[in-house]
């Protein structure tokens, strides 16, 4: 019985009030006031679709045996690499086995559900088990465009398998159309779209019913059998119309988080699915419909196992853990829309040494350190000679994972001279529970919030971007653990 075994979600910490965007750019497009409601989630300067996918993925695999995973499927239309497997970076960052299947799913916005379907097919045919499916998006609209208002950054992940599922996969129905409502070419940074009315009337109004009715007919089931209907449509009026047309009751209409997060592309339907699973009860039927170059409709039934997942963070915890980004131009600089000057030091040429990265890939991408087999001391970076002065064993190390460990701030400083898109650069020593100490950058925090002894967790982030060679380099940073109320 294939289905979803676990779920995770991630919404970046910073939220941009849409009125701030309107105040800055409304002069150019006054009609955009219609979109200036609520806030949009904005990836930090050191986040992208890969890092957010990792955050959601870590959330989903928490507590599971890392060696049990057999595949990682990553969906996004904003992957940092066109050549170099993005899912391979995600898999390494999740700390998974080398001998697994990985794939990137991209193109249309329905790629998120297509990745999920591929995983379900793999688990259903018993060819694969424990597949991490993660979708993440960081799309850009031009300043003053409606897309700039509407889009938000987010990620979701589910683990697909055929044992102990929390939501059993019952079936699916897909439609594919080369309907170019939104598009980006090979070298295009910003999303482009055709007229809204065309997208609404010929896109959403036709394809969503086609997909939903197709599934209902295929499995001889009625719409009101579903406790939740999840579908991707950010147009409020079109949504109301579709709900009425399809007979979706208000309590079954899963909120699309448009005013809290924004339209998150390939991640959108999975973000809504994860959000729905957080509240789901055994026996609930859930319908998930994506939109973009057609639709995938997926039908799930929640099982008793859902009760074991109730303490997962998922999307709702991310919604609460937020901070206001009170500065529109900061967002522009972070997304490289406005070229900010990070000082002379930012112009220093730093090569990516691929052979060196390959050598230390487990450390850099997975935050694997070492543990001495003689004395048991954890150490990071992994050492040849044991760091314990009493021991000093040579070449007696085994792998030891640090990415899942809690640390405490041993020291910290703020550096206004270091090149940073979010000065001051904050870094210092982190001492891990269980042993191990290393210098890390701190992120998702302000200098004045920090104190020694404060607990931190590790977060996979973009460490640098080499503009000259278009290289995104990654490493782990420390994020202060905040109490989520």
């Amino acid at each position: 019985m294939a289905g979803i075994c676990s779920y995770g979600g991630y919404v970046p910490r910073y939220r941009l009030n849409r009125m701030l965007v309107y105040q800055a750019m409304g002069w150019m497009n006054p009609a955009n006031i219609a979109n200036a409601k609520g806030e949009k989630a904005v990836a930090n300067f050191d986040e992208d679709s890969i890092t957010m996918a990792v955050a959601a993925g870590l959330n989903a695999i928490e507590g599971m045996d890392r060696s049990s995973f057999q595949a990682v499927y990553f969906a996004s239309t904003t992957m940092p690499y066109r050549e170099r497997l993005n899912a391979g970076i995600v898999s390494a960052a999740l700390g998974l086995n080398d001998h697994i299947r990985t794939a990137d799913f991209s193109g249309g916005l329905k790629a998120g559900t297509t990745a999920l379907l591929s995983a379900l097919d793999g688990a259903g045919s018993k060819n694969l088990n424990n597949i991490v499916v993660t979708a993440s998006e960081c799309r850009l609209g031009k300043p003053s465009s409606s897309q700039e208002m509407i889009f938000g950054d987010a990620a979701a992940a589910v683990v697909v398998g055929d044992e102990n599922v929390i939501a059993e996969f019952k079936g699916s129905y897909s439609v594919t159309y080369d309907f170019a409502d939104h598009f980006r070419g090979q070298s295009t940074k910003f999303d482009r779209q055709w007229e809204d009315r065309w997208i609404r009337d010929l896109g959403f109004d036709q394809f969503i019913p086609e997909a939903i009715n197709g599934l209902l007919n295929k499995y001889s089931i009625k719409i009101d059998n579903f406790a939740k209907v999840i579908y991707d449509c950010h147009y409020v009026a079109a949504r109301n119309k579709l709900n009425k047309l399809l007979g979706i009751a208000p309590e079954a209409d899963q909120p699309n988080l448009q005013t809290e997060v924004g339209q998150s592309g390939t991640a959108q339907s999975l973000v809504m699915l994860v959000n729905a699973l957080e509240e789901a009860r055994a026996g609930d039927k859930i319908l998930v419909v994506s939109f973009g170059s057609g639709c995938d409709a997926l039908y799930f039934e929640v099982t008793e196992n859902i009760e074991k997942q109730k303490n997962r963070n998922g999307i709702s915890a991310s919604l609460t853990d937020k901070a206001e980004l009170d500065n529109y131009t900061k967002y522009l600089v972070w997304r490289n829309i406005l070229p900010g000057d990070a000082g002379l030091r930012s112009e220093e040429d730093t090569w990516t040494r691929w052979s060196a990265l390959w050598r230390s890939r487990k450390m850099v991408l997975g935050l694997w350190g070492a543990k001495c087999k003689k004395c048991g001391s954890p150490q990071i970076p992994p050492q040849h000679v044991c760091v314990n002065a009493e021991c000093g064993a040579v070449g007696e190390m085994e792998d030891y994972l640090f990415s899942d460990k809690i640390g405490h701030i041993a020291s910290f400083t703020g550096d206004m001279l270091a090149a940073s898109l979010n000065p001051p650069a904050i870094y210092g020593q982190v001492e891990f529970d269980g042993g191990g100490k290393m210098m890390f950058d701190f992120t998702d925090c302000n200098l004045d919030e920090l104190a020694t002894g404060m607990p931190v967790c590790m977060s996979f982030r973009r460490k640098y971007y080499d503009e000259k060679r278009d290289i995104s380099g990654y490493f782990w940073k420390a994020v202060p653990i905040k109490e989520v109320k």
Partner: protein
Amino acid sequence: MADGIKDKVAILGMGCTRFGERWESYADDLAAEAFVEGLEDAAIEKKEIQAAYIGTHIDEINVGKAAVPLGVALKLPYIPVTRTENYCATATEAFRAACYSVAAGVYDIVLALGVEKLKDTG
């Protein structure tokens, strides 16, 4: 009147890494490999070493501009560690400085180590 270092200094032991492309090793891995062999050859314990000199030249891509990486890689706490640089005579410089410090009577046993990791330049 100066009389040089003749008959004042002896080499206790030597170690050398395996030659090759060494894609799997960083400079500190190479340093540890040579060091362990040298220590065995000298039949001494690490704690008997009173000072260390590291010669490394292409500092931007592997070891860096300080002597610290040698102390960290080999775990040599509480002794002075010095880095030398002089093009192709870089490690000779480390060796010479080590000899002088012994000849001067400052230390009894000193480590001189030269290391370069050239294969990460593309």
